[in-house]
């Protein structure tokens, strides 16, 4: 979170944080959680009664995430009314916890084979009839919007917890397997991408293997290569700037790099970046690409998930691999930003 001189967050920054959570929460509910629940119900993997029986309001410790203390902090702030940095942080933390809890349900199941493509069909990526209606945003003031988010986070945490418990109760998986998957989901972050980039900057032979073989090369960094199709690596140079999108859904090598920036999942970005990328990058990301530099937009289609290998910034000759990795940002891994030079700091 960015702060001003007094250490407080600007109100317009609070609004952008709230807006990001609103967008992401609806995305994860409509595209990840509920289609999965619906698919399992439709296929008889779990039943409606199993879900009702597993309602966490019946008691018991949470399996995957919703920290009751965090919920209390958010709840107290909610009842007090005013909006501040702590309340927004609590909301963002609960969204992160929800995303990880949903990820924990994506694991191999006993007696059922579920592929990501099933979810895409179920949520209406190819047929609008199946699309889940977004919840309306009828408030304009930030405090009300925050209270709405807190309520919706309660609801969605309740569902994912019930869903997880039902999967275990039905014998489809075990609490141990869920915890292991949850641990994996919470520990995967963009720092893997930063390490890959830094190694490619200091080791040209590794870079070549990375560009040619993708996932196989990341084993050299003790990063599990994952299994989600191929990893495409697009190298930025003086002549070409690459940027990544997935217009069909939101494909990203998340098994390697964690989740992409929140705007990656927005329809605005998906629609506009493939139409006319240069002005869109300037407008959305303050990223001015010179007119004679070629821009290539990579539209991922799930069998190849793309990341960008950004250019090594000037003023970094004296830095070692670890210090270089610390410069890499999540935005630069999709081509929406350059890696900042330490000289600019």
């Amino acid at each position, binding site marked *: 979170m960015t702060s001003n001189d007094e250490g407080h967050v600007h109100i317009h920054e609070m609004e952008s944080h709230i807006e990001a959570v609103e967008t992401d929460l609806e995305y994860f509910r409509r595209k990840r959680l509920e289609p999965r629940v619906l698919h399992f119900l439709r296929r008889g993997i779990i039943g409606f009664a199993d879900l009702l029986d597993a309602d966490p309001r019946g008691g018991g410790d949470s399996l995957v995430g919703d920290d009751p203390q965090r919920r209390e902090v958010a709840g107290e702030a909610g009842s007090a009314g005013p909006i501040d940095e702590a309340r927004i942080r609590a909301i963002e933390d609960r969204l992160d916890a929800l995303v990880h809890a949903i990820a924990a349900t994506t694991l191999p199941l006993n007696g059922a084979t579920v592929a990501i493509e099933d979810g895409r069909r179920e949520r209406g990526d190819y047929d609008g009839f199946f699309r889940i209606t977004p919840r309306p945003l009828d408030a304009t003031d930030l405090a009300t919007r925050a209270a709405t988010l807190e309520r919706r986070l309660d609801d969605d945490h309740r569902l994912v917890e019930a869903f997880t418990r039902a999967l275990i109760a039905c014998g489809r998986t075990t609490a141990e397997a869920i915890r292991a998957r949850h641990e994996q989901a919470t520990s995967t972050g963009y720092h893997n991408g930063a390490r890959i980039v830094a190694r490619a900057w200091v080791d040209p032979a590794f870079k070549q293997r990375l560009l040619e073989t993708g996932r196989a090369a990341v084993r050299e960094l003790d990063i599990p290569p994952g299994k989600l*199709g191929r990893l495409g690596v697009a190298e930025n140079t003086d002549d070409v700037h690459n940027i990544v999108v997935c217009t069909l859904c939101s494909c990203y090598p998340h098994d390697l790099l964690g989740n992409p920036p929140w705007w990656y999942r927005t329809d605005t970005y998906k629609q506009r970046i*493939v*139409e006319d990328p240069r002005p869109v990058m300037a407008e959305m990301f303050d990223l001015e690409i010179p007119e004679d*530099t070629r821009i290539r937009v990579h539209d991922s289609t799930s069998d190849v998930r793309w990341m960008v290998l950004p250019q090594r910034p000037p003023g970094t000759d004296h830095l070692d691999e670890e210090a270089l990795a610390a410069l890499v940002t999540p935005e630069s891994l999709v081509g929406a930003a350059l890696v900042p030079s330490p000289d600019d700091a």
Partner: protein
Amino acid sequence: MTAFAVGDRVRVRDSVPDGNPRTPGYLRGRAGVIVRSYGVVVNPLDHHAPYPPLHSVVFPLGEGVTDPHAEVLADLHDDWLERAE
């Protein structure tokens, strides 16, 4: 067996082949050039049956956009492509 090779000019079909919905709608009917071929990508976590061989195809931007140095690359399967002049 793939029908196409790197360097081929191809056009994206208008209709969805059976069982493979994965081609962005805005590319239908548009022509591009194959810049890389992968063969069949085995990806069972993503979809149950393998899709046909996969190619990276580069397209110029759509109608009405004048930027001469910008392009879109998409990864498309054999069954979505036909030869273009």
